[in-house]
């Protein structure tokens, strides 16, 4: 219990003290996970929309695969991306292993199945409600997908937020492909892992609380955006 109280005090002191390393680490976490979510959204939303709206052979197999990949452990994703980016791997010549770019790649791979599955689920409801009406207006599959994405844009924001939460909280993938290099690829979660292994538990917990607060602020910001957009506060935070 005293560890927790120590950590709360340390957390407040760190946050108030404006330690530059801390803020640089937090900023890197936000950048890596934020970029990964945007890239992952590009692929994930497209895939999710296609799975919702189109009919093509092998569709059901693909849906099962996507749903299974949802549960992929982040450390496995990290390992696979490492093998891809290693000098001996197919993409080794770009030399992006152990840089923030590699972390962005790994986290993008991590969130694509999540975004795809959630987007598909989001669209299926609207599709049931109005798919045939859009069809009667002359919309083919691509137009239907586009219109429903616009229609569901606030729901999609929640999907992206969920993906962001998953990305910024994971440590397995970024540890392996980033190497936890001080000042280059060290993010909040890998710092917490490092401090834990050094036995500095109060500091590790304090950093954890700070990370949680950062994610909390992002959630609140997006929630406010949605509230102004839909004017139904309860729905916005759901």
């Amino acid at each position: 219990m005293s560890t927790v109280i120590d950590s709360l005090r340390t957390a407040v002191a760190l946050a108030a003290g404006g330690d530059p390393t801390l803020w640089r680490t937090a900023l890197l976490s936000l950048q890596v996970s934020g970029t990964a979510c945007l890239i992952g959204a590009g692929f994930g939303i497209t895939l999710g929309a296609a799975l919702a709206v189109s009919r093509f052979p092998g569709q059901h197999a693909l849906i099962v695969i996507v749903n299974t990949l949802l549960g992929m452990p982040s450390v496995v994703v990290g390992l696979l991306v490492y093998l891809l980016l290693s000098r001996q791997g197919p993409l080794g010549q770009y030399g992006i292993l152990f840089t923030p770019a590699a972390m962005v790649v790994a986290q993008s791979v991590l969130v694509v199945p999540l975004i795809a599955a959630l987007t598909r689920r989001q669209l299926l409801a609207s599709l049931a409600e109005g798919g045939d009406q859009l069809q009667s207006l002359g919309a083919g599959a691509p137009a239907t997908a586009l219109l429903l994405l616009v229609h569901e844009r606030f729901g999609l924001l929640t999907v992206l937020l969920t993906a962001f939460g998953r990305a910024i909280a994971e440590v397995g993938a970024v540890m392996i492909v980033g190497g936890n290099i001080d000042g280059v690829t060290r993010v909040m979660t890998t710092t917490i892992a490092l401090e834990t292994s050094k036995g500095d538990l109060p500091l590790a917990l304090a950093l954890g609380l700070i990370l949680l607060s950062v994610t909390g602020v992002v959630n609140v910001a997006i929630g406010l955006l949605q509230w102004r957009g839909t004017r139904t506060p309860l729905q916005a935070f759901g």
Partner: protein
Amino acid sequence: MTAPGGTAPLITLRRAGVSFGATRALQGIDLALHRGERLVMVGPNGSGKTTLLRLMHGLLAHEGERRVHPLQPEGREPVCAMLFQRPFLLHLSVQWNVRVGLWLQGVPRREHAARSADALERVGLGGLARRRARELSGGQQQRLALARAFALQPDILFLDEPTASLDPGAKREIEALITATAGPELTLVMSTHDLRQARRLASRVIFLDEGRLLADLEVGRFFEGAALPEAATRFLKGELTWSH
């Protein structure tokens, strides 16, 4: 009102049928739709009215033959639009919902503003152009759906129980808008369970039961004494004993 036999047909169905899996929703349908008609379908729930509408509009896979004939004298394919019992409106403004319809049809962008404003005026929603579509009342939403359809300048308008979910006032508004615009330029095909509405709006009535077309008569003859199949007679009696 034009006599069914006199003009060339727009859509013909020959021995057409529709199945959903093991269920046969429609079978053996022979029907010809003529320009300027106001064709109303009646029948019990589950008789296949909605399916027949969608089949005529071209939304369903089917057996048998469905043919769309070019308009005379214009020589082009007829433009179709459909109204549903509960209109699906996007989370956009009123005018954007109309513009989406124009975009989907491929109308050139420069015409969008004028045609959508025009259509909204016609249905009396001109002042609400920027409102969120989903905030409108039931009657207003159906009027928006009508505007969306009118903006496309359709030759054939399909309506699937368009006033079933509306209160009497809204129902009257919608009916008024439909009758105001129907004419030699706009052919109507409508389904309804409201027989008085059928009487008010139709030029020709068909009766469906269990996926089969059992009666097809001019409106006067349908409601006044012509020899009808038993199912139709029972249906009429059943309905008319209730007061609306």
